[in-house]
């Protein structure tokens, strides 16, 4: 993780986006996987008698399918990497939100807990309601007025953890603030 923690800083919660968000993003790739099968099923005989297949040999469909699935396979892992590297981290001192955009763009937003002013959770839509995922909004007194953490599972629990940790951070000196070690939500 390309985040440098302070000495003694402990991670309270580390959350990724809900799996359903990734499933929706990967769905078009699943459709792409079916296309060669449909292609060969519908145009199989026509394809076999095509001059390019005659010239390239009978194993040309294998070549075509290999190329197609290789591209889909690589695209799937690019999407998965993009999903996996989006992380929300709550430590005993800060909230950190890492957003990966594609393979070569990343944004790391950080706010100290003592600058947090207001936290709210928002679940909008049918699937987010059924699967219980949504956005967590954190208002801060810093330069960046609002952090929005998108599509987190159990946003109410995340909100409560932020508020709980905020209370601990402002009540107690940093060295003695309690640490809740449950890191998964």
């Amino acid at each position, binding site marked *: *993780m*390309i985040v440098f923690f302070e000495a003694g800083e402990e991670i309270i919660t580390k959350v990724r986006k809900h799996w359903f968000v990734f499933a929706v993003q990967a769905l078009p790739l699943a459709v792409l996987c079916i296309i060669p099968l449909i292609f060969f099923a519908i*145009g199989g005989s*026509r*394809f076999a008698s*095509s*001059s*390019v297949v005659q*010239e*390239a*040999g009978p*194993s*040309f*469909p*294998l*070549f*075509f*399918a*290999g*190329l197609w*699935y*290789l591209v889909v*396979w*690589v695209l799937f*892992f*690019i999407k*998965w*990497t993009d999903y*996996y*590297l989006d992380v929300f981290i709550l430590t005993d001192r800060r909230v950190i939100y890492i957003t990966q955009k594609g*393979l070569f763009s990343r944004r790391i937003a950080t706010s100290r807990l003592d600058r947090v002013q207001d936290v709210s959770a928002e679940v909008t839509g049918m699937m987010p309601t059924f699967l219980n995922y949504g956005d967590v909004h954190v208002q801060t007194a810093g330069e960046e007025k609002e952090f929005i953490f998108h599509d987190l599972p159990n946003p109410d629990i995340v909100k409560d953890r932020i508020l709980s940790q905020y209370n601990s951070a402002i009540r107690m000196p940093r060295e003695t603030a309690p640490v809740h070690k449950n890191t998964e939500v």
Partner: protein
Amino acid sequence: MQSPDPFFAFPALSFPTSSFLSLVFLFALLMSFIMSAVLLYHWMSYGKNIMAVRVVASVYFIGVAIFLGMMLAGVS
């Protein structure tokens, strides 16, 4: 006069189809190497869980090997 193949237009290329397929295969091989390097960089840099990185990388490379193998079988 023989009508052009309506299914595929690219047999009209000036070099043999097998050479064209070989070029496509080499391009796919190069793309796989580059993408593998980029993905591995990300997994190794930001993935603290080494075991998970190993599993994901293994699955990825097995898939790449299978599909490149399919292409190679199609070329030869």
